[in-house]
């Protein structure tokens, strides 16, 4: 079982991923956005924990009816320099009140984790060739922040500066 960072701790990941054309195993599964669209009714009838991985071009505003059915939303970083998923995460948390797990997947590296966390990600599938223990350091590099984001609705100056 792969390990990920969740809520700033290293944990065993119990979410299973499969190819789109393979029959789903029992238990928690993380499926593609394409599969969700194709098999929506069957997936809803399945009554097992479900997560969906969204391309970073998906418009979050289109998902409001789907979100209550998902325990995990995985957002993609095809390259670590492609920052579209930061906006998706903030919209999920701040505009659509999504309370489930938001997981960063793809080219997920230590030096971007703090920004991801501020944007609303709480789970990080750090790239397999990197140390999760090292990556944990990313969360404590900065003790304050100026601007509001998913982790903090108020700017610094309105927090008793």
């Amino acid at each position, binding site marked *: 079982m792969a390990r990920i960072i969740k809520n700033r701790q290293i944990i065993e990941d119990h979410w299973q991923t499969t190819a789109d054309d393979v029959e789903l195993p029992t238990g928690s599964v993380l499926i593609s956005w394409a599969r969700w669209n194709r098999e929506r009714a069957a997936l809803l009838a399945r009554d097992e924990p479900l997560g969906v991985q969204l391309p970073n071009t998906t418009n979050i505003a289109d998902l409001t009816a789907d979100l209550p059915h998902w325990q995990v939303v995985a957002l993609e970083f095809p390259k*670590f*320099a492609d*920052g579209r998923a930061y906006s998706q995460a903030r919209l999920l948390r701040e505009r659509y009140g999504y309370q489930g797990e938001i997981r960063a997947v793809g080219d997920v590296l230590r030096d971007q984790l703090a*920004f991801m966390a501020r944007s609303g990600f709480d789970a990080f599938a750090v790239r397999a060739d990197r140390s999760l223990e090292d990556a944990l350091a990313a969360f404590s590099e*900065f003790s304050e922040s*100026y*601007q*509001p984001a998913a982790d903090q609705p108020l*700017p*610094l100056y309105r927090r008793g500066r």
Partner: protein
Amino acid sequence: MYQYDQYDQTLVNERVAQFRDQVQRYLAGELTDDEFRPLRLMNGLYLQRHAPMLRIAIPYGLLSTRQLRTLAYIARRYDRGYGHFTTRQNIQYNWPKLEETPDILAELAQVEMHAIQTSGNCIRNVTADHLSGVAPDEREDPRIYCEIIRQWSTFHPEFSYLPRKFKIAVTGAAHDRAAAQVHDIGLNLLHNAEGEIGFRVLVGGGLGRTPIIGQVIREFLPQRDLLSYLEAILRVYNQYGRRDNIYKARIKILVKALGTAHFREQVETEWGYIKDSGLTLDTAEVERVRRYFTPPPYEPDAAGDPGFEPWQQDDPAFAAWVRHNVADHKVAGYRNVFVALKTPGVAPGDLTADQMDAVADLADRYSFGQIRVTHHQNLLLPDVRQADLYPLWNALAAQKLATPVIGTLADMICCPGLDFCSLASASSLAIAHQINEKFDRLDDLYDLGELRLNLSGCMNACGHHHVGHIGILGVDKKGEEWYQISLGGSSENDVTLGDILGPSVPKAEVANTLERVLHVYVEQRQDGERFLDTFRRIGLDPFRARAYIAKPEAIVPRKPRATQQPAVEAA
């Protein structure tokens, strides 16, 4: 000027520690070149032709004397004894050692400075009118809003991996001295009919290989909505800006592709969700920041000084300097003094460590301890009493910083070019030198009047060639340097992009061609017309007809070849 509190200081200190760790991991092989690149760029560090280049932020161009002395110290201790001021009011060092850059940042942090977001695909150092707070034509002081934007944009979690770099400029006067119309976002401070403070918002301007003038998407944005509106623009850009082609990734391309009306609609829709949120700027915060920018204790009787007029009459050299290098001030009896970094034979914008120390001493003595950096690559001492101008002039002249050429042909904007930059196709500094040698008589420069000459060593346009009254662009043709000349650009209120004169000319012919172009101007000008005015009246043809020795066809016109290397690290 703004002073750090414990929060600002902590953040900058933490950044130094973070970067030190990143450099160590890079040197230890734990970060690849590709992974380290955006991290170092967001700390202003480029790996250049000869050595790393470190670009340090000078927020909206303001420096204290303590900061300038630290820059001098860094130039001596870590570099080769000089620094280079840029068109975005920053300073660059060309010879630091990669391993020492964390130490440099630590030195800077001690004087409330940093290199945060001076490069990379993030929100860059915000620029402003160099006469902010002292200009006679000012409506509101941009510095307050620049500082507020600086804090909002610093380590912005959502907007640190944008499709491309993002530059914001703020002006608050009738006259645009910050080239706001050629920025990703330009903000002009103004008042509405009720006298409330707000901003005209322009989006999608920029130079580079596709120069575009910004479009107004809001005529009046109330002060309280500044940050929520910026956030809405950036969010639309972050989601929909192109990421497949670095040359089409700036927001100007998105605005153009969507059309201004559609782009505005998207921004306004997004803004509708966030306009009443934690981003709403409360008046108390604006006033808190404003208190850092209160005017210095001006002397009420400064205008009563009897010496200033006689000195000008007695000393024509002083009078010429006053005419060209001294600008009006909003307070009677005070002046703004340009410290010209345009000494012939020295790269425009360069200043030695000794000169930095000297300027700091003069600012302490004559200008309430403050210095500004202008986007024309000069320094400025604001708040100088007219009674002090004569001794100040003498002191600046002793430092070779009183060349009386501000606003003339010799006051060139020039990028570092092939001498330093790994993107350059041409040696812009050599061309600046060639032009200085050709036009070395002050009387000739004065006769040519107000003239903006901007030089870029490649299409990335760091030298703003598109908006020079005369622009010169270096292009590489089969390993040879050629220069394309354009006429009629402006970055001010009457913003225009220059028209290309004709075929590019070989390196040796640049100053000669310029001379022929200027002959046409001298012949054709009517009473008091600047070069730009004459050009606008008579058009390109008379210039083109005379600019070339032979017929233009004799010089084989070739389309400039695209630079081989992608402009990943373009300023």
